[in-house]
C-alpha cells in the first residue's frame, strides 16, 4: 500500500497532541487521589478534561486539514521509553485523528450524559475518574506511534473496562462479568503480546514507520503468524468469534459505559489494530482472509444472538458484535475496505452510542428495568428518547440516506467485489439486523404497555437528552458526508493507502436492493410478531433455534467444556500431586526429624552427675583419639 512519509518534529496543535492523553489522565489522577474532597465537583472536572482533549483533537484536525496530503503524517517525539528499543512518540495521521475525534467527541457527550444518569449514585466521582482513565488509555492506544505504546493503551482500556463493568461491585453478577471480561481479554492480549514480540524479533523495531516499510520482505510464514496473533488480540478486544463471550455479560456495567466502551470506542480497537497493521496483513493474504472469515462469522453470530435477547442492553450488545463483525470484514478486504471499516466504525460509534444512551434513558425512567417484555408503548411518554432512538434504529438497519445505509452498503459492495460468498453472507446479516433491531424498537416504544405496576416513566432531564439529540444528528448525516465523493477514503489515503480505482456509489445495484428488501422483510416480520401482536410478559419457550440464540450460541458452554473443565481437572491433579507427593515428602521428613528428636531429648534428664559422666566419656574419647593419632 502507498502511504505518505512520516514527518518528524510536528508543531502547533499537533505538537501539543500529547495533551489529549495527559488531560484525562490528570483528571483521573486528581479524582482518584483527591478522594471524597472532590465529590462535589469531580464530575465537572471529568467532563472538562474530556472536553479539553476534544478541543485539542479538533485543533489538531484543523491544522492537519491545512496541510498537503504528503505532510499529513506527523510524528511527535515524547521520550526514550526503553533505551535502544522503544522511543515513545505519537503518530498523528488521518487514521489516528479520526479515532481521536470519535473518542473525545462521543466520549465527551457520554461524560455529559453521565452527569444526569449517575446523579443518584454515591460513587459518581469514582465513575468519572474511571471514564477519564479510559479516555486517556484509549487515546494512547490510537495515537501511539509504536506497538508497545499501543499495547500499554490496550491494557489500559482493558483495566478501565474491568473497573467500569464491575462498577457496581456489590452485585455479584457485575463482579463476575468484570472478571469474565478481563480473563477473556487476557487470552487476546496474550496473542497480541506474542505478536509484538514476533514483530520485534523479525523487524528489529516496534515503531510503525520502520516496521511497515519492510513488512513485505519478511518470510511469508512469519508474517502469517504475526497477522494471526494480532488478529487474536483484535478478537479479544473487539468481542469477535471465538472470544466473543464477554461482551454480553459486560452489559452489567452502567449504561453510559456500555455506550462508550462496549459500543462506540474500546471494542473497535481491534478494527483499528487490523487497519493500522494493514501493511502486515496485505503481505500475509492467509491472515487477511482469516480476518474476513472471523468478521462474517461474528456478524452472523451477533445478529442471531440479538434476535433472541429480551434484555434491551444485551440485544444491543449482540448488535454491537454484529456491526464490529462488518468492520472486521471490511478491514480484512485490504485498501478497498479500510475506509468503509473506519466509516462504519465512526457512524456506528454515533448511532450505537445514541441507542445505548436511549436505552439508558428508558431504564432511568423504568426503575432500571431492562426486560423489554416489561416495556411497550413508551413512545408517548418519552418522545425525545423515542425519536432519537428511532433515528439510531433507522441508521443501523440501513434505512436509505441515513448513516448506516451508506457505510454498511459500502462494506457489502466491497465484500462482493473481493469474494461474493462473503458479500451475500453480509447481506443476510443485514436482513437479520432489520429484524432484531425492529424487534427492540417495537417492543420498547410501541405496542401495548406492559409496565410493572410501580413504573411511572417520564422523559429524562436535558443533560441526558441533549447528547442524544447531538448523537442522532450524527446518525443521520455522518454516513452520507463520509462516503459520498469518497471523502473519508481520500482523507485516510495518506495513512492507509487507497485502492487503485476509487469505488463509486451504486444505490441500485443488486446487493444493495436485495439488502433493502431483506431489511424490509425483517422489519415486517418484527412488526407482525412484536408490534401488532401481543407480546407475552414471560418469554415463551421458543424453538430449538431460539434457545440456541438465547444461550449465546452455546459459546459459554463451549468454553466451559473445552477450557474450564480441563483446566479444573488440571488444577485438581496438580493439587493432588502437591498434597500427596510434595507435602508427603516434606511432612515425612519433618515427622522423622521430630520423632528422632523426641527420643533423643530423653538424654536431658536433669541429673548433673550423668552429664558429668558423659563429659568424662567425651574427654576420654578425645584423649584416646589423640593418643591414637600420636602413634601413627
Amino acid at each position: 500500500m502507498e502511504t505518505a512519509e512520516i514527518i518528524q518534529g510536528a508543531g502547533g496543535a499537533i505538537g501539543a497532541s500529547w495533551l489529549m492523553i495527559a488531560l484525562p489522565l490528570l483528571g483521573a489522577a486528581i479524582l482518584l487521589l483527591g478522594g471524597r474532597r472532590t465529590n462535589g465537583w469531580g464530575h465537572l472536572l471529568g467532563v472538562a478534561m474530556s472536553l479539553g482533549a476534544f478541543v485539542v483533537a479538533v485543533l489538531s484536525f484543523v491544522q492537519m486539514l491545512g496541510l498537503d496530503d504528503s505532510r499529513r503524517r506527523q510524528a511527535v517525539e515524547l521520550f526514550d521509553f526503553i533505551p535502544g528499543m522503544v522511543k515513545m512518540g505519537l503518530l498523528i495521521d488521518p487514521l489516528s485523528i479520526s479515532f481521536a475525534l470519535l473518542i473525545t467527541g462521543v466520549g465527551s457527550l457520554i461524560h455529559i450524559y453521565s452527569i444526569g444518569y449517575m446523579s443518584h449514585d454515591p460513587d459518581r466521582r469514582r465513575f468519572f475518574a474511571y471514564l477519564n482513565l479510559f479516555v486517556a488509555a484509549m487515546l494512547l492506544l490510537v495515537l501511539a506511534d509504536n506497538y508497545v505504546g499501543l499495547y500499554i493503551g490496550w491494557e489500559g482500556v482493558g483495566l478501565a473496562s474491568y473497573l467500569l463493568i464491575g462498577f457496581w461491585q456489590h452485585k455479584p453478577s457485575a463482579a463476575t462479568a468484570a472478571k469474565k471480561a478481563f480473563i477473556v481479554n487476557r487470552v487476546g492480549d496474550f496473542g497480541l503480546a506474542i505478536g509484538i514480540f514476533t514483530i520485534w524479533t523479525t523487524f528489529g523495531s516496534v515503531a510503525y514507520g520502520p516496521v511497515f516499510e519492510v513488512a513485505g520482505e519478511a518470510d511469508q510464514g512469519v508474517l502469517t503468524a504475526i497477522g494471526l496473533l494480532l488478529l487474536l488480540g483484535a478478537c479479544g478486544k473487539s468481542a469477535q468469534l471465538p472470544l466473543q463471550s464477554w461482551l454480553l455479560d459486560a452489559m452489567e456495567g452502567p449504561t453510559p459505559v456500555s455506550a462508550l466502551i462496549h459500543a462506540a470506542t474500546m471494542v473497535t480497537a481491534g478494527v483499528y489494530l487490523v487497519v493500522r497493521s494493514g501493511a502486515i496483513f496485505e503481505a500475509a493474504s492467509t491472515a487477511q482472509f482469516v480476518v474476513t472469515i472471523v468478521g462474517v462469522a461474528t456478524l452472523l453470530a451477533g445478529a442471531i444472538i440479538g434476535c433472541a435477547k429480551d434484555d434491551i442492553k444485551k440485544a444491543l450488545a449482540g448488535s454491537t458484535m454484529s456491526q464490529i463483525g462488518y468492520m472486521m470484514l471490511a478491514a480484512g478486504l485490504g485498501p478497498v475496505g479500510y475506509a468503509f471499516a473506519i466509516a462504519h466504525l465512526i457512524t456506528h460509534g454515533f448511532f450505537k452510542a445514541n441507542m445505548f444512551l436511549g436505552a439508558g434513558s428508558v431504564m432511568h425512567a423504568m426503575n432500571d428495568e431492562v426486560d423489554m417484555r416489561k416495556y411497550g408503548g413508551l413512545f408517548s411518554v418519552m418522545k425525545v428518547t423515542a425519536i432519537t432512538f428511532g433515528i439510531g434504529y433507522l441508521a443501523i438497519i440501513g434505512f436509505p440516506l441515513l448513516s448506516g445505509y451508506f457505510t454498511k452498503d459500502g462494506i457489502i459492495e466491497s465484500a462482493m467485489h473481493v469474494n461474493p460468498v462473503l458479500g451475500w453472507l453480509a447481506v443476510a446479516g443485514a436482513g437479520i439486523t432489520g429484524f432484531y433491531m425492529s424487534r427492540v424498537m417495537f417492543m420498547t416504544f410501541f405496542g401495548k404497555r406492559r409496565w410493572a405496576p410501580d413504573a411511572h416513566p417520564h422523559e429524562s432531564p436535558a443533560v441526558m437528552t441533549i447528547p442524544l439529540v447531538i448523537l442522532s444528528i450524527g446518525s443521520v448525516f455522518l454516513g452520507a458526508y463520509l462516503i459520498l465523493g469518497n471523502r473519508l477514503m481520500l482523507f485516510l489515503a495518506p495513512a492507509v493507502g487507497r485502492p487503485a480505482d476509487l469505488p463509486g456509489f451504486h444505490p441500485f445495484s443488486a446487493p444493495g436492493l436485495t439488502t433493502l428488501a431483506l431489511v424490509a422483510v425483517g422489519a415486517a416480520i418484527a412488526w407482525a410478531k412484536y408490534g401488532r401482536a401481543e407480546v407475552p410478559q414471560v418469554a415463551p419457550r421458543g424453538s430449538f433455534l431460539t434457545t440456541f440464540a438465547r444461550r449465546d450460541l452455546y459459546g459459554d458452554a463451549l468454553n466451559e467444556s473445552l477450557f474450564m473443565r480441563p483446566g479444573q481437572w488440571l488444577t485438581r491433579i496438580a493439587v493432588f500431586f502437591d498434597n500427596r507427593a510434595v507435602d508427603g515428602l516434606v511432612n515425612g521428613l519433618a515427622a522423622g526429624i521430630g520423632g528422632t528428636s523426641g527420643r533423643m531429648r530423653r538424654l536431658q534428664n536433669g541429673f548433673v552427675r550423668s552429664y558429668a559422666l558423659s563429659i568424662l566419656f567425651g574427654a576420654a574419647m578425645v584423649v584416646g583419639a589423640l593418643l591414637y593419632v600420636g602413634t601413627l
Partner: protein
Amino acid sequence: MTTHYLVLSVLLFTIGAVGVLIRRNAIVAFMCVELMLNACNLAFVTFARQHGNLDGQIIAFFVMVVAAAEVVVGLAIIVTIFRTRRSASIDDANLLKY
C-alpha cells in the same frame, strides 16, 4: 622426679573426677572440681619446670583466676539452692530437663 609429680597429679585428678561422679553433696562435688583443677595446675607447673620456661606457670595462674571466679558464682548458686530447698543434694536439683 617429674614422673612422681605427674603421678600425684593423675591421682588427684582421678580422686576429683570420681568424687564429682559419685558424691551427691553439692559442696563436695564442687571441692572435687577444684581438686581436678589443681591437679592440672600441678601438671602444668611440673612441665614448666622440666622444660625450663614459664608458659606452664602462667597457665596455672590463669586457671587459678578462673577457679576463683567460678567459686564465687558456684558457691552463690549452691547457697541459694540450699536456702530455697533446704538441701544441697545435686540430684534433688533436677528440674531443668526435657
